[in-house]
């Protein structure tokens, strides 16, 4: 079975600090991993994805994420953080090439507040 865990429901940090949102997954084969962002009152927007290859992937808005197979993690990073990064962030997993048809499994989400 596939699952995604985002252990931090809420994260608050100061503008200019470095942010790192945690995501761990459980899947028996090679996963595809995603981060989506949901700004207040808006729908989900795609940020970045890891399919294969380079374990550090860069996305939109200055975000990047690192895939670590050794501890089944895909943490989202950005430095420095800006107040406009305040939003809810979702990590998601898809079964990858080993699946006949893939669908996204989402984590619970992390609400990020960046304060001045």
């Amino acid at each position, binding site marked *: 079975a596939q699952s995604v865990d985002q252990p931090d429901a809420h994260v608050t940090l100061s503008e200019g600090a470095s942010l790192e949102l945690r995501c761990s997954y459980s899947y028996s084969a090679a996963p595809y991993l995603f981060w989506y962002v949901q700004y207040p009152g808006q729908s989900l927007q795609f940020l970045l*994805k890891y*399919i294969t290859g380079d374990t550090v992937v860069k996305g939109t808005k200055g975000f990047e994420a690192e895939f670590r197979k050794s501890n089944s993690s895909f943490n989202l990073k950005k430095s420095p953080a800006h107040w406009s990064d305040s939003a809810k962030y979702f990590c998601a997993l898809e079964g990858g090439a080993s699946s006949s048809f893939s669908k996204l499994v989402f984590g619970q989400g992390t609400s990020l507040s960046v304060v001045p």
Partner: protein
Amino acid sequence: GGIITQTPKFLIGQEGQKLTLKCQQNFNHDTMYWYRQDSGKGLRLIYYSITENDLQKGDLSEGYDASREKKSSFSLTVTSAQKNEMAVFLCASSILGGDTQYFGPGTRLLVL
């Protein structure tokens, strides 16, 4: 680029009522999805349609029906609304076999 439109934006229903939510996309994507988002939880897949004539149940299909009227549109019906139910329903689409999904703005449901 393209856009996903969901109607209505807000839906208030009565207990036991049948309610229909609509989704239209102009990406020309083959695959469409319906998710439910509850406060404090992640998204859960209700139904999806891989191609125009396909319909598949997701993890949360009980209490819902879906219909893929044509390639660009995908409807979701709440068969019997539950009292005090409150959630956001998100429609998404992707290319066939594609991994990146694009989401609509959502329909907010409140059942009195």
